[in-house]
């Protein structure tokens, strides 16, 4: 990438669609499950049969309120509207959404960096079905025939519209990671980008630093992973800058991220705005959550990721980067519980950061984890042994002391280790010579041999120390 960030400012605003984790769809009793045989999670309303009527799913509203509160939004009287457009995967040819009166109004989200990103709104709407166009270019216009699966039609979505406050691909990723963590924390969504339960549309524009006006933006769709998000932003920003430098006019477009080619391609121009003929959905009544309900939801709101990070840093001495990772892995409660039980703080954080990436680690018994951190800190186990015991603890549970015994792990006294080291040096004079000369190819040789000789019981760092003690001091010039 060759964007000169001293000259150019990238302006990014994200629209995130989150599928809400309800048992049934937004306006009917058909199941809200991912996948399934095509057209099995359907009923009269899902198919838009004549005479069917929508009835709002109360749980979806509660989840929307949870997210709204977690994003510091105002919770408002809201109205559902019909967004009218013809497309085969939209069973009624209109989508029930919220237009001028969304359930969640202005709010904000704070990134771990401390930067605050504005939230414009977070509103409820129904998802569409899925079309597959067979033949032609895979587009509806030249397809031989098209297949439609309505399983997803009517699934509740919360569309979270962020302000254009993000300034880089990394920041955009951090925003999505934080938003996803919040959605998962409040139980609103499973946040799986790969299953489409979290979908990110990305608005990108560029301008020179100091410009008051925002540049013309393009909306990028089909971003299926965090990695794609960063790449798509960088590509699109560079494309726009190149156009400006070539004195070309940037057209407002919807663009498609092509993961394989690593670039965005024009999908359609937005210069002629679509006319969706919004009007209030007459089959539904205004949605006015009572203050009691909102208060009840607020009282039951779980601790949010930002609070978790803060708490972990305060109680364990972890730095922010460590806290971000540990909270993301859902291990902060484990760490705090272990600390309560007297775990070694530094080892606790180190292990959580480096050795507990397996999701099963969330199930560790804090008491046993605490015990292991102390065995490690007290030198009863070498770091290699600690890792082995920890891995087994994660997979099978049990008592770390017993696991260590079962492996025959015990702390080696230094005399024993000295003897092993001396013997190996004596047996391998040629290698020792090269080692002393600093040959990088031989650097791991002796540690490896010691480990083998001690069946892994020696502490690697200690062995390294013993070896360097034995290197003859170079003659002074």
């Amino acid at each position: 990438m060759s964007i000169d960030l001293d000259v150019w400012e990238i302006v990014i605003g994200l629209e995130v669609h989150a599928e809400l984790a309800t048992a049934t769809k937004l306006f009917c009793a058909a199941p809200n499950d991912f996948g399934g045989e095509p057209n099995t999670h359907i009923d009269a309303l899902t198919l838009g049969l004549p005479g069917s009527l929508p009835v709002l799913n109360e749980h979806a509203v509660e989840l929307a309120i949870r997210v709204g509160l977690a994003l510091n939004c105002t919770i408002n009287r809201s109205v559902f509207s019909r967004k009218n457009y013809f497309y085969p995967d939209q069973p009624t040819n209109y989508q029930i959404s919220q237009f001028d009166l969304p359930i969640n109004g202005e709010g904000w989200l704070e990134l771990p960096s401390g930067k605050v990103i504005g939230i414009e709104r977070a509103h409820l709407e129904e998802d569409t079905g899925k079309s597959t166009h067979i033949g032609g270019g895979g587009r509806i216009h030249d397809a031989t025939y098209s297949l439609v699966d309505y399983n997803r039609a009517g699934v509740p979505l919360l569309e979270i519209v962020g302000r254009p406050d993000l300034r880089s691909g990394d920041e955009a990723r951090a925003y999505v990671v934080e938003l996803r963590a919040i959605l998962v924390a409040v139980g609103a969504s499973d946040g799986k980008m790969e299953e489409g339960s979290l979908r990110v549309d990305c608005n990108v524009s560029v301008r020179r630093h100091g410009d008051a006006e925002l540049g013309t933006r393009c909306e990028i769709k089909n971003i299926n992973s965090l990695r794609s998000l960063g790449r798509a932003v960088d590509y699109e920003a560079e494309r726009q800058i190149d156009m400006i430098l070539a004195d070309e006019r940037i057209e407002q477009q919807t663009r498609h991220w092509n993961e394989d080619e690593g670039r965005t391609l024009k999908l359609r121009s937005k210069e002629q705005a679509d006319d969706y003929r919004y009007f209030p959905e007459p089959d539904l009544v205004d949605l006015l959550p009572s203050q009691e309900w909102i208060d009840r939801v607020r009282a039951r709101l779980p601790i949010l990721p930002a609070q978790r990070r803060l708490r972990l840093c305060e109680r364990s001495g972890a730095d922010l980067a460590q806290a971000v990772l540990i909270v993301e892995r859902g291990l902060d409660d484990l760490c705090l519980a272990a600390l309560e039980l007297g775990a070694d703080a530094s080892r606790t954080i180190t292990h959580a950061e480096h050795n507990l990436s397996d999701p099963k680690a969330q199930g560790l018994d804090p008491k046993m984890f605490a015990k292991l951190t102390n065995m490690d800190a007290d030198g009863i186990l070498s770091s290699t042994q600690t890792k082995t015991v920890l891995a087994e603890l994660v997979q099978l549970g049990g008592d770390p002391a017993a696991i260590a015994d079962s492996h025959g792990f015990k702390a080696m006294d230094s005399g024993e280790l000295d003897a092993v080291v001396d013997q190996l040096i004596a047996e391998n004079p040629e290698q020792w010579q090269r080692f002393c000369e600093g040959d990088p190819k031989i650097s791991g040789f002796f540690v490896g041999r010691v480990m083998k000789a001690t069946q892994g019981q020696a502490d690697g760092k200690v062995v390294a120390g013993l070896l360097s003690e034995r290197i003859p001091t170079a003659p002074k010039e």
Partner: protein
Amino acid sequence: MTSALEIAASVRAAERSAREVLDEHLAVIAEREADVHAFNLVTTEHAIAAAVAVDELVAQGGNPGLLAGVPVAIKDNLCTRGVATTCSSKILQGWVPPYDATVVSRLAAAGAIMVGKTNMDEFAMGSSTENSAFGPTRNPHNLSLVPGGSSGGSAAAVAAGFAPISLGSDTGGSIRQPAALCGVVGVKPTYGTVSRLGLVAFGSSLDQVGPFANSVAEAALVCEVIGGHDPGDSTSIPQAFPSVSDHLSDGVAGMRIGLITEMMGEGISPDVAQRIRAAAECLAAAGAEVEEVSVPAVTYGLSAYYLVAPAEASSNLSRYDGVRYGLRVEAPTTGEMMELTRTAGFGDEVKRRIMLGTYALSAGYYDAFYGTALKVRTLIRRDFDTAYERFDALLSPTSPTTAFAFGDKTADPMSMYLNDVCTIASNLAGHPAMSVPYGVGTDGMPVGAQVLAPALGELAMFRVAAVLEGSLV
């Protein structure tokens, strides 16, 4: 003609069988249906099975319900499980609903026997039943005249004796106007008192299901059976339908009744106006205080209605695209298939309203058209509210004229729309209104008096209607 009340009483008492009652009505249908064409479909087999089930229940000592063995005709925009529901449109060709509308299942649970699906203006758009894809229904009182619409088939079915009661739907007068033209009672209840679940939508914020009957008492009973809360309709009011049947003989002594000035002047046929003045005098004679009252905003009703109803219809009817059910005209691309299907499937009036509604909702026009229409709705409600501070019920003609001839108004849609000038305001306000026969015009054809009441004011409305009905006997 035996009333629904008498039929139900005799079937419950096992004095007559539901099967006998059904056969009598099927015989009348066999005799006159070819002339009248009230039905899109006569559901003989269905009806026989239902009648036999009622008779078995009676034989077992069970309670077959308030409408035991009563034949009922159902407008063809109400979904009936396993029975084609067409809305008198080609576009729903071949579609069979997998469910009953709430009102249909409530009638069946009360022991009523569906004898057929009645003809209507396509998607309930019209005032003469001439807009049916399957040919018009004729007025049983004079086969050269229209029965009114859009529920013309349901009105004609009752007037012809095919069934003592029937159901229709009323978006701008589609129950009351054909009731008036066919000389039967027709009721549009308060919006939200009767479930719309299973009613094929036209103008969702205006649509309401209601009964036709030969008497006020029968209509009252049907309202009580089909009305009341339905959790499947979000706009359904969470309470039971007012118990009107118990108060039909309460009279109108001391009631304050207003004759709507704006519905008695220009455009109202003199013989119709004369009958409504006679109705007002009758109510005064029965002890009511009757005065003229101005409800100014109702004059804007027609314009507002022809924006709101088509706007909602343009969206409601967009689902008929050939993708999932009904008619499909094959074409090389999905877009062309949709276009050809809708072009072939919808009649002219439906297309006209879809275009009108699409235009009214378009960017740049919304505020001027749909937005303004919503404000007029609020004004109409406010003017009614003002009137109801002084009056318990209001009175007007149901239709400006008696039944007219086929083809009279089809060339000029505006002249057809003017038929609804007295009925539309109640739909825009969401208020109840009903038509009760009150004599005949100079042509000998029935005239209907319309009784209007505030939201949930069915009790007052039915009392007034009962007095008008009683005064003619």
